[in-house]
């Protein structure tokens, strides 16, 4: 059974892939807000966090990662995470990239789902769009 939930042909499936984490705060918010816009268009949307990506959905990092803004006044990543979560974007991780950072699923914020490389590739083949960052 696919990780995708929809069977309706007119609901498109968009998979975002986030590889950046706390060392690149300016690269962390965009996948969340593009995913939010995608979900607001009634698509099914998931973000797969791999490499440094799981740092974006680790507990307390939502408050710690500040999206820089020239002139000051950057926003917390949490704002973008919550916006995406509220509209139904799902967050996926895989075990090897948790191991990379010494994380377990207990270190992830609520709602993060574990998948593996096979499920990821299966999702990618079934998706209408795969967008990587």
């Amino acid at each position: 059974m696919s990780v995708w939930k929809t069977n309706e042909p007119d609901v498109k499936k968009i998979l975002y892939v986030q590889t950046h984490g706390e060392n690149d705060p300016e690269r962390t918010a965009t996948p969340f807000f593009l995913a939010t816009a995608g979900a607001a268009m009634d698509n099914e949307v998931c973000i797969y966090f791999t490499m440094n990506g799981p740092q974006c959905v680790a507990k307390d990092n939502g408050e710690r990662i500040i999206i820089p803004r020239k002139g000051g006044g950057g926003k917390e990543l949490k704002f973008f995470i919550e916006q995406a979560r509220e509209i139904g974007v799902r967050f996926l991780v895989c075990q090897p990239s948790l191991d990379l950072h010494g994380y377990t699923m207990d270190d992830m914020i609520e709602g993060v789902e574990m998948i593996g490389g096979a499920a990821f590739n299966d999702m990618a083949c079934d998706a209408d769009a795969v967008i990587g960052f």
Partner: protein
Amino acid sequence: MDVIKEDQVLDCSGMLCPIPVVKTSKAIKAMEIGQVLKMIATDPGAPPDMEAWSRQTGNELLRSMQEDGKFVFYIKRMK
């Protein structure tokens, strides 16, 4: 230009992408099919965004215009 009568107004002035899209999506889902939402935005990305949003979701963008320096959209809930 014909006057379009809206059933509800949503003011997204000052809000940036993707908040106008998110709020429009929520507002239209709470309305009845056939009703019209008037959405006001100042984000310069709003005109192409609302055109794309309407095409993707199957709701009808009746009009997209500028008024008093703001972008104004009339959207009819179709399904």
